[in-house]
């Protein structure tokens, strides 16, 4: 093994991959959210469809899409590898009496579970929108753009999708309440001057992003 593969297959190296990909995925969330906010515009989806058309065909975005797939791929793969290794490290005999809840938070201990819920949501989400837009012929709107808005309208008539999307965002919220600041600690970016600010920003980021995403299916279900 070369020193590079050795570095990134060590326990710290794997966590560095988690942290870098995790923070990269956070930047993706911002881009995705800002674009999707156009769903709230009262123009029957004209702006949203134009945006969606742009995202589907711009070469720069299509290149970033590959980076995004790799980011998710590494994050999920390393996350599952770490979860398996960490479980094995504890051994077969568990504590008869374990009060771990007295020394740590539930969501920090449940990153793999929360991530897996997010993953399930993600697969359904890709099937709902990305799959139809990329691989089927979608009717066009008055401006000649693919009518992604109509897909959103249709999907969020279904209460099961609305529920699943909200659950997905709650899982992501808890994933990020720990993950955001945890990634800085993993990268060694901990300092008594800045860490309190990183924690605060992490909380704000997680709550705002996840609440805004969750508002979309709820708004469409009740008001459209």
């Amino acid at each position, binding site marked *: 093994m070369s020193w590079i593969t050795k570095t990134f297959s*060590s326990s*710290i190296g794997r966590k560095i991959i988690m942290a870098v990909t995790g923070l990269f995925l956070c930047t993706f969330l911002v881009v995705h959210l800002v674009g999707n906010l156009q769903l709230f515009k009262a123009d029957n989806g004209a702006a949203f469809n134009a945006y969606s058309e742009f995202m589907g065909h711009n070469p720069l975005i299509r290149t970033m899409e590959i980076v995004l797939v790799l980011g998710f791929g590494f994050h999920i793969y390393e996350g599952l590898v770490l979860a398996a290794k*960490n479980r094995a*490290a*504890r051994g077969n005999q568990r*504590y008869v009496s374990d009060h771990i809840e007295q*020394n740590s938070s539930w969501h*920090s201990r449940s*990153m793999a579970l929360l991530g897996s819920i997010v993953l399930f949501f993600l697969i359904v989400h890709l099937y709902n929108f990305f799959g139809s837009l990329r691989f089927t012929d979608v009717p066009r709107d008055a401006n000649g753009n693919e009518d992604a808005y109509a897909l959103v309208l249709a999907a969020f008539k279904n209460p099961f999708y609305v529920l699943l999307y909200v659950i997905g965002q709650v899982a992501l919220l808890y994933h990020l309440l720990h993950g955001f600041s945890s990634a800085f600690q993993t990268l060694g970016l*901990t300092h008594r001057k800045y860490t309190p600010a990183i924690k605060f920003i992490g909380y704000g980021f997680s709550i705002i992003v996840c609440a805004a995403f969750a508002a979309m299916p709820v708004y469409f279900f009740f008001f459209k």
Partner: protein
Amino acid sequence: MAGSNPNAKPMNLTLKVWRQRNRNTEGRIVDYQVQDISPDMSFLEMLDVLNEDLLRKGEEPVVFDHDCREGICGSCNLFINGRAHGPEPGTTTCQLHMRKFSDGDTITIEPWRSSAFPVNKDLSVDRSAFDRIIQAGGYISVNTGGTPDANEIPVPKEIADRAFEAATCIACGACVASCKNSSAMLFVSAKVSQLALLPQGHVERKSRVENMVAQMDKEGFGACSNIGSCAAECPVGISLENIAILNREFLSAKATSNNLA
């Protein structure tokens, strides 16, 4: 007895103790009663009472590790009522007093659980994995010869204090025992940052962190999920900041050392 409270009433307790013959057999919880335990006793003295009872009855006493009984050696490792070194923060088991419990309590006592710390017998585990991590790099090389001057190498007070804080780690393993991943990162980070902070540690700075982390992984300890159970349970209060220092040391060593393997 000096400092004892004459009004403190002796306690009767039910103990649920992990008994295991050796590494290769299954263990189980066995119930015992202990009577007339003084609140001034330490937890280990309470176990001494149990063992005397057992010896009197011709049964095998419970094996547990202990040495200094004053909180500095890191041997007395018991998982008490679901917490490493018991529910009292900032204490080793030997410094835990029975006055923290009440008459009639049931107390569950287990060994550290981690695949890197196999159970020797009953409550005693094999922590030689820690020794092998130290052997991999947790030292400084010093030339033999005359005694060096005390202040030959100046160390600023602030740095010396931070290094000393990290050096207070007694290698007890409570961090591993309480971590859901059985990660040894708090222990390793205390050793690495102590030596990285001091000029004496700079000679082997890069190889130290590379080798200690490699050994830590080889021993089968888990990775750090930044959950923080370790620092919450550490009897001497080693802080999570050390783990950030360890990660920085590891990354910069990997990026700049001459070690291609």
